[in-house]
């Protein structure tokens, strides 16, 4: 059903000077879908996300979001339109309190302060540790807690599409499980998610569909269960 198309990327390329980082990528995310994008180090996963959110310019191709062509929009317009990002390495604002970090996430939502208050409570319910430490500096949190804050902060941007960049990076297995549980929960509440991961097994285990990105090219796309069963994918990304 074409009306359920939330994000549509057609022939997208992106470069750093003469170096092509993304070549002719085609990609879709449906409303309410959880899509995984897996690939090794340097495959271009982060560049792809940055291009989607306007932080890195597209050199050619088109990005359509909810029926609008956002290819050349400024990042702040894209966030306001409903694409929010949980960046690689968390990138929380360390010298600011947890509460202030969350308020910054809601920067584009000032017109609806009731919603912001509700959603802040929702985030605190999702991650009780953040509520406990709300007046402490974000820099004092552990890696896993910073990841929770980064997700909470993105939720306050009222995402229709949530971009997650390597949320499992540098976390203990137990925490990875916790974070992935939350991702599934958010998706079941209706947020469409594009999950970029090196941890292919964990990502494909929760996703409905997957893309394999290799040196800037999308080389394969299929339902996640098919990818998990695919011999070539297993050898290259799942290690068995």
């Amino acid at each position, binding site marked *: 059903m074409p009306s359920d198309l939330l994000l549509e990327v057609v022939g997208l390329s992106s470069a750093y000077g003469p170096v092509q980082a993304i070549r002719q990528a085609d990609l879709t995310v449906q409303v309410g879908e959880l899509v995984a994008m897996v690939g090794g180090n340097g495959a271009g996963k982060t560049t792809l996300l940055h291009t989607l959110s306007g*932080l890195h310019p597209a050199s050619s191709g088109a990005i359509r979001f909810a029926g609008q062509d956002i290819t050349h929009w400024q*990042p*702040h317009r894209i*966030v306001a339109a409903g694409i*929010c990002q949980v960046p690689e390495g968390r990138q929380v604002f360390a010298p600011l309190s947890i509460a202030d970090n969350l*308020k*910054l996430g809601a*920067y*584009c939502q000032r017109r609806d302060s009731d919603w912001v208050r509700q959603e802040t409570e929702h985030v605190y319910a999702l991650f009780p540790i953040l509520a406990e430490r709300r007046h402490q500096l974000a820099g004092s949190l552990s890696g896993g807690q910073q990841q929770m804050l980064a997700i909470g902060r993105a939720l306050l941007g009222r995402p229709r599409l949530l971009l997650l960049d390597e949320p499992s990076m540098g976390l203990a297995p137990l925490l990875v499980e916790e974070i992935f549980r939350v991702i599934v929960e958010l998706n079941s509440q209706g947020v469409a998610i594009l999950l970029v991961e090196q941890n292919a097994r964990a990502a494909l285990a929760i996703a409905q569909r997957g893309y394999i990105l290799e040196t800037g090219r999308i080389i394969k796309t299929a339902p996640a269960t098919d990818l998990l069963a695919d011999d070539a994918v297993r050898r290259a990304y799942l290690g068995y």
Partner: protein
Amino acid sequence: MRLTGFYALALVAGLLPVLFPGNYFITVVGIAAGLNVILAVGLNLLIGYAGQISLGHAAFFGMGAYASAILTTRYAFPPLLALSAGLISAGLMAWGLARPILRLHGHYLAMATLGFGIIIHVIMVQATGWTGGPDGLTGIPLLVLFGWAVDSDQRWYFVIMATMLLAVWLALNLVDSRIGRALRAVRGSEFGARMMGIDTARAKTQVFVVSALFAAFAGSLFAHQQGFVSPDSFNLSISIDLVIMVVLGGMASTFGAAFGAIALTLLHEGLVVFEDYEMLIHGALLMAVMIFLPQGLFVGLSQGARRGWTLVCRRQ
């Protein structure tokens, strides 16, 4: 709670002339310190909170001063109208300059603002027909506020202290607002701030304009208070002094900037007795502060005091 420091500052400003009535030092140095506080608190919004350097801030101070001087002496503008014109021109200049200049980072931004400060200073010296050239402009009329002439050092002291408190109060509120949070985010990580949907170019422009307005306001008051302006009051070394006040007091703290401004004003006054050695001692003290209290005087000393206090408590 947030305003405790503000009330303390107001109390000190109000009590000093009562405790030392008719003291020349309090009023005259207090006026200079108050003007410097307005300048430093405004510049701190840019340097301390938004993390953008300006080595040409004396230019905005000078634009406010010269606007008042030129418009009141040559065109017989009433002082408050001249002051408003100074604010508008400095604000417009900052706004026009911000977009191209604030794309730059670090050393490049420092160079660009430095160049801007030098250009404005050259104009003050060279545009003799308007500015009076190196000799400056004299005969700037008294500031009259709703029929109340500010004609004595005591009156000036109260006017400057009142505007200083207003400036501090505005800065405290700005920092705690949505825009203030956006600025702190920009300082933390400009990239991260853009990811939050903050239009960083716009946020930086806004803070640049606000800090220029603080400076122009101080400049107008300065022109009326002195009755005379000349380019020497707005040269590079003044710009650098302003940065020193912010850094000395402790960046990203409004009270730190105020403290730094007061400390540097007193230092200048106190070191006058050393004549030729003044600059030498001045420089040595600054180096010592940066080595031993790198977070600045205000933060460094208040942390030291807290540590001392807990030590005392533990002993008892």
